[in-house]
């Protein structure tokens, strides 16, 4: 597949040029230098009030140059891919080091590439009229769901990111990474009452995904269903209680509670609440958590990470015991651990760092119905908005957007959105049941760290957490649990 010769064909780059740029980057010494070329094309469309009010397309291209000297990183980038500007950026990045010039390895090692998202026609190149059809169909389906759906916004966005990464150690990787996503937001209104719903999904897929596997109608109905349901939501309870998480997107729990805390940079610097806990028990025996960048078509997947390293499936927690961290080149070298292929960056303007890909918990033995039946009074949360974590003290939150009360083992009334808060290093020790129904999210996740956004995936089977703080508003005397 020579779609990967992109930069050589479009910019007339030669391997000789690449060697020259790397030599400039190492002109003041340093152990390692790499170049990250990126050419990103994107499309987006939005329908609002049943009109396609905006459509846009764009191109963003550039090259980022990194020089590593010990624990120090020098970085410079340019959006002008002429040899003069790249050399200038290389010399700027080189300022981090101060020693005699190093010579990069001559000749690049090209490995056979994996192909996790083999689209024949990237969606960015597909007919725009087909994308218009998608958002219009979503709008119609959401409105048709229920007359109380009064406002609908449906959007479609796709991109194709062509990258080339070369390193002074002979690293050479190219990839062409498609990404597409639909989103439908609804507002339901009755006299004096309003509520919102939201649903979406996608992945590293071609446009036909939205005409077959997951249609605009699928997302529209889901969004409208949530909005209508929320019209009747009661106040959420407040305080510690048993919480059952539904399968799929509630896996954001893992992303916040343990995922970030296991990124190697925080552990190298000993700033994570998980620092020094490898080999220790951090979860109940029923919990095995992996980060897997190799799942076909998934939003969080990559053939190679943004440092040219093939992605892999990494066990983070095995039967409750912490196994290891997610690393990039720098942390792997400094910590003497292997590179797990988790070095990612938002764009050529950014320095790579350890990031998650698709993070999920393996399925357990419990029947999801039994899990709900085992709860006397608690909350069943099935959809979430997002979450956040403080790496250092381990406290994390995630915000439920669709949740219900569980009373005497039965799911009863829907409750208003509430934030759930817990402590990362011990929340999984309170997981007492793990369902046999592992599901991954629909492909909507974007993770932010140090101002860099990257697409990710999450997943869990149905889980029971024995104790978690629910941030509702219900007063005890009038609250959610009153019959």
């Amino acid at each position, binding site marked *: 597949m020579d779609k990967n010769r992109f930069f050589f064909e479009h910019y007339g780059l030669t391997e000789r040029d690449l060697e020259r740029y790397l030599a400039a980057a190492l002109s003041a010494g340093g152990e390692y230098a790499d170049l990250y070329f990126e050419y990103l094309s994107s499309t*987006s469309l939005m329908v609002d009030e049943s*009109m396609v009010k905006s459509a846009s397309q764009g*191109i963003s291209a550039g090259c980022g140059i990194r020089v590593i000297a010990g624990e120090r990183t020098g970085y410079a980038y340019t959006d002008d891919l002429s040899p003069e500007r790249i050399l200038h950026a290389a010399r700027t990045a080189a300022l981090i080091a101060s020693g005699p010039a190093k010579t990069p390895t001559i000749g690049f090692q090209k490995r056979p590439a994996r192909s996790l998202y083999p689209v024949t026609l990237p969606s960015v190149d597909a007919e725009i009229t087909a994308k218009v059809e998608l958002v219009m169909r979503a709008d119609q389906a959401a409105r048709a769901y229920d007359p109380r759906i009064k406002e609908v916004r449906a959007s479609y966005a796709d991109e194709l990111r062509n990258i080339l990464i070369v390193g002074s150690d002979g690293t050479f990787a190219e990839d062409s990474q498609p990404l597409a996503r639909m989103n439908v937001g609804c507002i339901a209104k009755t006299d004096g009452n309003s*509520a919102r719903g939201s649903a979406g999904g996608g992945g590293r897929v071609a446009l036909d995904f939205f005409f077959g596997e997951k249609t605009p109608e699928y997302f529209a109905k889901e969004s409208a269903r949530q909005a209508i349901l929320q019209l009747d939501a009661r106040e959420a309870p407040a305080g510690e209680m048993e919480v059952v998480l539904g399968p799929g997107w509630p896996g954001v729990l893992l992303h916040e509670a343990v995922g970030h805390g296991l990124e190697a940079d925080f552990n190298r610097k000993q*700033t994570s609440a998980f620092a020094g806990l490898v080999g220790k028990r951090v979860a109940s025996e029923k919990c095995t958590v992996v980060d897997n960048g190799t799942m076909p078509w998934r939003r969080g997947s990559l053939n190679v990470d943004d440092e040219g390293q093939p992605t892999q499936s990494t066990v983070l927690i095995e039967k409750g015991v912490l196994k290891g961290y997610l690393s990039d080149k720098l942390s792997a070298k400094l910590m003497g651990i292997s590179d797990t292929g988790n070095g990612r960056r938002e764009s050529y303007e950014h320095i790579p760092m350890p990031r998650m890909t698709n993070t999920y918990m393996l399925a357990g033995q419990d029947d999801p119905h039994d899990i709900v039946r085992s709860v006397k009074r608690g909350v069943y949360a099935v959809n979430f908005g997002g979450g956040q*974590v403080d790496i250092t003290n381990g406290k994390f939150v995630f915000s439920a957007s669709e949740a219900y009360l569980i009373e005497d083992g039965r799911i009863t009334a829907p409750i208003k959105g509430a934030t759930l808060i817990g402590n990362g290093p011990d929340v999984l020790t309170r997981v007492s049941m793990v369902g046999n129904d592992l599901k991954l999210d629909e492909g909507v996740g974007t993770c932010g760290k140090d101002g860099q956004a990257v697409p990710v995936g999450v997943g869990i089977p149905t889980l029971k957490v024995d104790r978690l*703080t629910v941030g509702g508003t219900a007063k005890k005397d009038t609250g959610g649990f009153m019959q």
Partner: protein
Amino acid sequence: MHSTELEAQDSKLRTDLRDLAQDIVRRAMNRGATASECVIRDGDEFSTLVRLGQVETLKESGSKAIGVRVFNGKRAASTYSSDFSRESLDRMLTSALDLSRITSEDPYAGIPEPEQLGSIGGDLDLYSADVYSLPGQERIAYARRAEKAALDYDPRIKNSEGGSFDAATGHKILANSHGFVGEYRRSYCSVAAVPIAQSENGAMQRDYWFSVARSLIRLESPEHVGKVAAQRTLRRLGAKKVKTAHVPVVFDPLLATSILEHIFEGVNGDSVYRGASFLAGKLGQKIASQNVTVIDDGTMPGGFGTAPFDGEGIPTRRTLVIENGVLKSYVLNTYTAKKLGLQTTANASRGLAGTPGIGPGNYFLQPGTKTPQQIIGEIKEGLYVTEFLGHGANLVTGDYSRGASGLWIYGGELAFPVEEITVAGNLKDMFLNISEIANDLEFRGAVASPTVRIDDLTVGGE
């Protein structure tokens, strides 16, 4: 170094970019657009992070990008590019014109009327070349000094995510087919420290502090920043959970800005015309307590939210949003103003692509007269919240629930640190329950608030 040579290139580039923006508009019109608008952004950045005394990262670069919005009657589309080659710009124009054939006719679409366009005059004090005046080693020294001040402050500060110094300049050009062309430059620099404290049982806490300014001479000293960062971190040590309670909550100034942002989101014309906000239709009504007056002012010299014109080329202005609790004005751009039958408030924000959004100028809550200490002193039991986690605010319903940490107020004093709690309520009530506003308004960004007290919130804990 290379500074003189690059500056000479820069000023040539500036003239060229202004011409280029006008040329793109002209070419779009020649190729059949009925109206068009071009935006160019050009900027550079420097950042350094020092950790435990050693330089960890050093980053220096510049970039630029161009975007065009075209109208085909009442149909709009936009495209952008970071590649300024002739072919790329041609392709950008062609795609924009093609896209404008597939979007819907929207009777309210369009650029502002010619008589609305313009810039406010005078020196807005937005740009100071001194943000780049420090030699490389001194920039690193700024970062190092901030971190060192934090590390030296107390032996319990045992680790650090580092000290940093950042500088950036940005240049924005806007041109449209009514003949408007305007440009401005803005500069920015900041110094920050993120220390980590550890208590005897090994539990760690992290916090931060920073100073940001448009000019280096207005930046607070790195030593001051490091010291405040250390104090903010130390006071979190030994934090515990509390029992679920209904108490008054005092929001520190940085967190009180989030309440102001919720108001902004609620009176944003885009949410208003769609009925996606509980404040839609509340013009002239009481939506907050009597002591609340909120202003958006895009004209304040030196402000972080100041510009001579908004994202559509309309002169910025001062807008009274809430006066003594009564909603006086929504915040609007041209499109949402037309939809609501109102006048724009010059709050259009313009990215490279898409339709203009709505963003704040310098947007703030008028300060009161009490000190934060007086306000805390009047509370028997309550929460002083200093950090939020997560984004649990729903403007459609007003439902509000966020993760939090801070200090527990007992007998009018900050008694002990608390964490792993939630703060919940409904924004409708919260705006009306703002019972106190302190006198400590200070701008650390475009949105600023003094300390505020809000009564009767649910603090969720054990």
